[in-house]
């Protein structure tokens, strides 16, 4: 791409700029729906569109009304707390199991590696409605349907592929002679793991954890089936709101969730660059 050469013809110049405009439009399509809801959430009226006051940038047109609503409404508050109780637990479970397995999978000789990998990634591929229906039937049989533990286990299973993918990707660049060196100097495997390997793969583990967290924090299909009213999460509450009586409070919730995503994205990007630096690659 870079700059146009000075000898470019008129046609080439036109195409060059048209192409940039097309790309600009696609980026606009990607980002605009998310950006638009932010100002709408400060609407002083109960409308889902810009009021004339808002367009005149009149301070009267803006208010924190919908945010107050969110923080004072019991069902939204309990939904938020439920989400905050479920997502971290699910993350801990998937990160613990996932990291161990990723280390196992990156050993040089693993029998059935491809098949095992296919099974571990499958929760990401199988349509959520099928996972949800299966879990609903099976968890009812073993008494986990409608319980906190049931939802945590289900969400942990859904988060595992993300942990496996990110941690194995980090382990590709891990120099195995370091663990041998540690063993040579008398460290037992557990010490080697926590003092040598873990600090080096930590960025990958944290990003995997963030992926697992956002998976659980965002998930609605499985929790609809496996959970009961006591586990109503934020996405569940939003889903009901969107399906039945849509209230502008949803805009405030959406804005808060966008802010959370921006923070998570920034963290993951920072970790990725740090891990590439550690591995001696120039961050791209």
């Amino acid at each position, binding site marked *: 791409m870079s700059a146009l050469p000075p000898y470019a013809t008129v046609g080439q110049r036109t195409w060059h700029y048209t192409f940039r405009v097309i790309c600009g439009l696609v980026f606009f399509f990607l980002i605009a729906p998310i950006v638009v809801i932010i100002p709408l959430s400060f609407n002083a009226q109960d409308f889902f569109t810009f009021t004339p006051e808002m367009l005149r940038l009149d301070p009267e047109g803006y208010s924190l009304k919908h945010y107050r609503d969110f923080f004072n409404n019991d069902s939204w508050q309990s939904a938020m707390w439920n989400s905050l109780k479920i997502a971290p637990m699910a993350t801990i479970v998937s990160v613990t199991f996932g990291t161990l397995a990723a280390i196992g999978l990156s050993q040089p000789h693993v029998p059935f590696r491809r098949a095992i990998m296919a099974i571990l990634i499958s929760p990401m591929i199988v349509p959520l409605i099928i996972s949800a229906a299966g879990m609903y039937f099976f968890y009812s049989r073993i008494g986990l349907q409608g319980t906190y533990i049931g939802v945590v286990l289900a969400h942990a299973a859904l988060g595992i592929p993300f942990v496996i993918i990110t941690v194995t990707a980090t382990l590709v660049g891990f120099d195995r002679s370091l663990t041998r060196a540690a063993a040579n100097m008398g460290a037992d495997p557990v010490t080697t793991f926590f003092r040598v390997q873990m600090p080096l793969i930590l960025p990958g583990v944290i990003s995997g954890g963030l992926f697992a967290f956002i998976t659980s924090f965002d998930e609605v299909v499985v929790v609809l089936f496996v959970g009961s009213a006591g586990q109503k999460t934020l996405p569940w509450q939003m889903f009901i709101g969107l399906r039945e009586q849509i209230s502008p409070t949803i805009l405030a919730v959406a804005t808060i969730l966008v802010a959370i995503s921006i923070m998570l994205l920034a963290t*993951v990007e920072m970790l990725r660059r740090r891990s590439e630096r550690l591995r001696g690659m120039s961050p791209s």
Partner: protein
Amino acid sequence: MSDITQSGPVLAADGTPLKRSLSRALRMQKLRALMLIAPLLLFILVTFILPVGDMLFRSVENGIVRDTLPRTVEALADWDPASGELPEEAVFAAMAADLQIAAEEKTHTKVAKRLNYENPGVSSVFRKSGRKVSKWDLATDGPFREKLIDIDKGWGDIELWRTIKTYSGQITSGYFLNAVDMQLGAEGPEIRPENERIYNTMLIRTMRMSLIITFSCILLGYPVAWILANLPARKANLLLILVLLPFWTSLLVRTSAWKILLQQQGVINDTLVWIGLVDDANRLVLINNELGTIIAMTHILLPFMILPMYSVMQTINPSYLRAAKSLGATDWTAFWRVYFPQTVPGIGAGSILVFILAVGYYITPALVGGTKGTFISNLIAYHISTSGNWGLGAALGAILLAVVLLLYWVYDKVVGIDNVKLG
């Protein structure tokens, strides 16, 4: 040949043959790797694989008729529905006995509900008879044939008995046939009447809309991936954030954004009216139809298309294009004959991923699709949570799963699941 005199196999330091010692070390290594993987594998097996298997099993499981009406099923074994005659008195007596027990345990309504899926109308026959039969004395009140037909004419219908006989097996293909708009008729599987066919339409619609979404993603994603791969790293990284932010934003947030924007009184219609493109009286209907689902899902799945294409395009050497042009190719020929073929793996990877995700989508079609823009997943959810016909829901799920797994297998062959990248 060798200078060293050898009196046997090479030995390791502890005196065992080296070969055996090495293979033992390898075995230990494999075992250690498996020990690390085992907990997770077990976890996934219990929390995920078994539940999915359980659901698949429900799509063929059919113990209820045999369990609730054991005597009738046994008595019906000798009856030939093709004869055109009602079963003998013994069968009716067996049915009366079964119904008495079933009515007492209140299971007759369940079996009635099951049979009603296959032969609408059966349910009321069973419900009506259940109450009355429980007052009979089985030993003296015969013959039961006339008495049952007296309660409900339905008992005199050969079709009813044929349905019971057809669905008396422990497993059934009935749900699957139902899921592809067929039924078990007198001469094996047959296609349902025109007005009862809904599932095929739904499957085809799901496939068609997923294909449209995949193509729109290719169309919109290709230029963006190209510009990302060809800009200087610093600028590209900034623009990449615009792709990753939607990827990280909650699905519900994006769906609600579209639901709000696409409304008839929403921002898009307001803007169009303000510009003057659309008359205020004829605001566009952008939501609760196929278009709404396609717009929202293209937006949601676009990052999954851009990221694999971008990672493939990054590896393409720009000097190929320059070489083609210096050999006299026009811009278009250079792109189409030299650059484009090298990006096909990226397009393939992205397309399979987007298609797999699109086919199984539930939330977005449910919220912006209205009735015209829903997917097979919505139908599965309906059968499992609302109608209670779990077997049919499971059969539809099994078909969907088969499609997805087939594509997953192709994806693994073409791209390799190890190469999936997240951001």
